[in-house]
């Protein structure tokens, strides 16, 4: 492993996939084969991605630990670094350092029914743990997946969502906000909390993984509470700004917690106990 805290590994872009007009997935492989072998991570962890010359950006690792030989990230075009990352094509070199942070408590999830809810690019961390669980399908109870987006054009992982829908051992629903459907849309139309209430998963022996924009999280939590879920049953992630990943730079500090070290995965109950500034 490297000795310097901030120096990234060099990675090769192995595949570029466009999820939507502004969300792209990169598949990265280690240029150093020794690292490739020793590298391990858990679902929910995040990493820093370098576009040399422009800087670093933080995203969760969107691939599952069960998908070996590479890591994937999905990111939305927002600024200088993401637009530089979008300029990369297959074979180009970029930087990667990680994994950082805690992870989804998959061991605690074993034996439970699972509900996975992702909104927009929030589906990226959900995908990691979801694929991880699907790869160990027999260890879990009922699995419900809800992938929502503002519009049909903004739905990420559409092909995979359709593949999950086709499976008989999970219930998978995709939805778009009212007015966001377009010609040929074969999913639900409605805000995620509403569709969630329609799906009405049982709170009994169930864990919920919930990721997405702050406003969606807020209203989904209200719905979940109404449906009888406790704060401990709902697991989500915080997406604070970060620069170091090791609890030093101060950006992701919320109360006593550093999201980069103590998170990014929190239960709704844990978040409720934090100062409300995220």
């Amino acid at each position, binding site marked *: 492993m490297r000795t310097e805290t901030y120096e990234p590994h060099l990675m090769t872009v192995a595949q570029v996939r466009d999820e939507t007009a502004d969300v792209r997935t990169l598949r990265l492989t280690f240029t150093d084969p020794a690292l490739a072998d020793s590298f391990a991570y858990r679902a929910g962890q995040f990493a820093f991605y370098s576009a040399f010359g422009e800087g670093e950006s933080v995203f969760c690792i969107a691939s599952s630990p069960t998908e070996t030989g590479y890591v994937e990230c999905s990111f939305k075009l927002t600024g200088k670094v993401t637009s530089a990352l979008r300029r990369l094509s297959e074979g180009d070199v970029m930087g990667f350092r990680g994994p950082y942070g805690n992870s989804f408590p998959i061991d605690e999830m074993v034996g439970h029914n699972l509900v996975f809810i992702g909104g927009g690019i929030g589906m990226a961390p959900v995908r990691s743990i979801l694929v991880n669980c699907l790869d160990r399908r027999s260890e879990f109870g009922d699995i419900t997946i809800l992938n929502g987006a503002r519009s049909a054009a903004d739905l990420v992982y559409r092909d995979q969502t359709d593949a999950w829908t086709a499976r008989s051992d999970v219930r998978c629903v995709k939805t778009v906000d009212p007015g966001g459907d377009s010609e040929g849309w074969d999913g639900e139309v409605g805000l995620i909390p509403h569709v969630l209430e329609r799906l009405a998963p049982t709170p009994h022996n169930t864990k919920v993984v919930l990721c997405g924009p702050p406003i969606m999280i807020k209203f989904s939590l209200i719905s979940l509470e109404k449906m009888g879920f406790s704060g401990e049953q709902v697991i989500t992630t915080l997406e604070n*700004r970060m*620069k170091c990943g*090791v*609890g*030093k730079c101060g950006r992701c500090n*919320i109360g006593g917690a550093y999201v980069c070290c103590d998170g990014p995965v929190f239960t709704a109950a844990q978040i409720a106990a934090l100062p409300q500034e995220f």
Partner: protein
Amino acid sequence: MSPTTYLADSAQAVLTAILAAGQRVVAPVEQAGLLAFAHVEQAEQAQLIGQTRASAKELAFPRTQRLFGYRFGNPGVELLPGEEPPAPTVLFGVRPCDAAGLAILDGVFGAEPADAPYLARRARITVVGLSCDQPQAHCACTAVGLSPTATDGSDLLLTPLAEGVLVEVLTARGAALVDLLGEALRPGAADKAEVTARAEAAMAPRALPAGLADGLAAAFGEAAWADAAARCLGCGTCAFVCPTCHCFDVVDESNLRGGQRLRVWDACQFGLFTLHASGHNPRADQAARYRQRALHKFSYYPRAHGRPMCVGCGRCVNACPAGMDIFEVAATAAAGQG
């Protein structure tokens, strides 16, 4: 380790001996009308009265630090090393508050996963503290559990007495330095209690209320923060002169040929500090940002580490363009809650 103590003629004499021993020394000097830590070659250059405008943290945590470099190829990128840490240095004449600041930074940067660039520099610094015998109007070390003669963070602490100076050896690194100094130091002991008492008596009475950490945490939602922060203009002066503030930004600088990744000081008072790429800002106004600073220092940190993330140097109060006083604001906010 119980401190070994020595006596010397004066702090100046100790400095002379350190320089004579061939050590690289950074000490307070007067520059452009202000005291600043700078390289000294002769003991007379050092100005051992008063408080430096900036804290001593810069030597270990510089304003700008190259984390690594890179050169573009076609195709590919070649990584280049980060900065070469400076030569071993004696940081001389550090006031107990500043030394305690370094101790706090050591805790932050040393906590796993540790910060290698900081530690690389820090490992080469020997801190020679200098007790404070003439506190400033803004000094408040006693309010945060320190004293004008506190030893926290120093490898050696010099305390000027009526006759000569008391040298306390506090760490192995301090002892190693003493070994180089020869006859400038005489083994001996003296009581610094009187010095401490006199200096403390000279300080303006400042105290933080009991239960501040919990009181502030409870006051998080108070509307009063907006009033408290009304004057604050959101510059980074308080953080930049603070011995314990350590927020930083990581930026790239590059051209066609390559570039470098730098760590530069940052401050939680800047609006962009927490701004998400999406435009969402968890701390959208100055009140929230000021609250973060107050709570981080006097609530979050103390709850985890049992001491404030403040050494009472009072620099932020003194330097604030708008007359903000964090002690005052924290006490008021916590009291308002009670």
